[in-house]
């Protein structure tokens, strides 16, 4: 533990800028994964334990597409839409069979999916750590804001993720599809009775959640190493986000993601060995004080 270091960082503008930019980037990437998880849970009532695996898959898809085309855009699109497609297949053939069953079933099916996909990834891409090269377009000198170093790619990431967050919030709040999804979360029977095909709504929601996870995986491929089994840690973090923010709440997920992002970036200075423990501590506190999460409604 090094509180003096943390205090001196908080005292200098350059260090604060650097850590805030890192925290924002980590937080927004986390938000993409966590918002999908919370959306799927809110509408389908399914905890997708394999969500982190979709994120991993996105990184691998991006890696291959980038290797084949050399285009960053192609890599991101391949990650996002490739995983959306994989997610749809998963939902249609496997998960749709277990809607409404108990947690044990959901857990077992997702566990099996994780086992299979981790192995498939190992067969196709090998078990070593891989990393995607940063595209030339983003290889610019880092920006200096108030003496703090902000890598150019962080700005790109933040721009994309913030745009997606706004799009998601607008889509859920102000479009017909968004209203349908929110209605299906509350009363799917009634939505079906009104002539809306809930099967399609469910598949679409799962597809969107998978797309977001794949997108996050693709975007993180240049800054994090890609390795089979990488999905579990991001799954745990996303879950911590949904607990802190409240299951089913997009805004809560955003606030909690940023909170965790800052915990990570500043925690790595103050408590380098206890950063993960710090996240759990925050979660435990929230659970004790307000079990439904910051923005969550009361749940049974």
């Amino acid at each position, binding site marked *: 533990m090094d509180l003096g270091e943390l205090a001196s960082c908080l005292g200098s503008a350059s260090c604060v800028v650097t850590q805030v930019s890192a925290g924002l980037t980590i937080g927004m990437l986390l938000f993409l994964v966590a918002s999908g998880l919370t959306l799927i849970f809110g509408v389908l009532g399914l905890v997708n334990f394999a969500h982190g695996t979709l994120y991993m898959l996105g990184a691998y898809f991006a890696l291959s597409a980038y290797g084949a085309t050399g285009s960053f855009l192609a890599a991101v699109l391949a990650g996002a839409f490739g995983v959306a497609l994989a997610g749809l297949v998963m939902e249609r053939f496997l998960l749709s069979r277990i809607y409404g069953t108990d*947690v044990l079933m959901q857990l077992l099916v997702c566990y099996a999916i994780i086992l299979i996909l981790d192995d498939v990834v190992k067969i196709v891409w090998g078990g070593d750590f891989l990393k995607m090269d940063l595209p030339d377009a983003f290889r610019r000198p880092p920006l200096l804001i108030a003496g703090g170093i902000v890598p150019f790619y962080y700005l790109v990431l933040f721009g994309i993720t913030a745009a997606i967050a706004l799009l998601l919030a607008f889509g859920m709040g102000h479009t017909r599809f968004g209203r349908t999804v929110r209605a299906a979360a509350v009363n799917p029977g009634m939505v079906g009775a009104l002539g809306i095909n809930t099967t399609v709504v469910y598949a679409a929601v799962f597809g969107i959640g998978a797309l977001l996870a794949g997108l996050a995986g693709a975007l993180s491929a240049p800054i994090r190493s890609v390795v089979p089994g990488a999905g579990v840690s991001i799954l745990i973090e996303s879950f911590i986000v949904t607990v802190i923010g409240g299951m089913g709440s997009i805004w809560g997920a955003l606030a909690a993601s940023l909170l965790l992002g800052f915990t990570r970036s500043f925690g790595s200075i103050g408590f380098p060995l206890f950063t993960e423990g710090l996240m759990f501590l925050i979660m435990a506190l929230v*659970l004790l004080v307000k079990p439904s999460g910051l923005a969550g409604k009361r749940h049974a």
Partner: protein
Amino acid sequence: MTWRGDALLALLGFVALAAVALGLGAPSVLDFAIRFAIFGLMAMSLNLLIGTTGLVSFGHAAFFGAGAYTFGLLMQSGGWSIPMAILAAIVFSALLALVIGALCVRLSEIYFAFLTLAFQMLLHSLVISWVSLTGGDQGLMGGIPKPPFLGIDLGDARHLALFSAFCLLASVVALRQVVRSPFGAALRMLRDNPERAAFLGLFIFRYRLAAFVIAGTFAGLAGVLMSLYVSGAFPTFLYWTTSGEAIFMIMLGGITVFLGPLAGAAIFLLLNDWITNITEHHGLVLGSILLVLVLGLRKGLLDFAVDAWRERQGRRA
């Protein structure tokens, strides 16, 4: 049948096992017997939560790992006899279960599953990063001393096999007592109808917590046996896959039959050995089998067999 009956059965089972193990004495048989005792105990303890209480824990390996590491560290520190170290490791696992359980059992089932997983991964990362105590990635190296006690030398595979079998059978008898006691009946009511249990004045939190602690304690004992078996302790003991495997075993055996998890553990170990022999793509094969089982049967193998048998009986009558 009273507990005496159970104990007698267990004693007979022990004698039969001992006769087979010592008679054959082949290393592979002993090896399998030890692993069966370890994972059978792990699965049986987890089923107290999943099958009896209806709490789906995805973090049961936390206590397995805690037992293994506590025991290993105490024995390496010297000055501890094996029985005292086992006792200390079990007590530590129970205390850990008390703390984690107090935070987790008041939550609804999905949160419970995830939160137990999260705490287990926290412990895992603690073990990985606290290198000076736990050896980090490498695990507890250097072997675990096994000074003989009461004429039992656990360094000898035959002694260890018998000792493991004894621990397993004693624990199974104890667990059966728990399940059949009024306390066990209360746990089943919590599983089937928590609201009614609350109306009847049961303090749900206390009952669930007690079940969680009991399950964690027996998992800790399984962890102790594991660290005796491999003569060390490794971070994989507390990784989420170990919890997943335990749930898989329960699923293979069945959650409604008391001894189902034992059957499941045996099937899982045989399956595991067989798959490891024929392919390196272990997860792919295991995962596919699990998918077929879960989506096809929708219950454990033994549950399926028992239901099918009951149906036939019903048709005959």
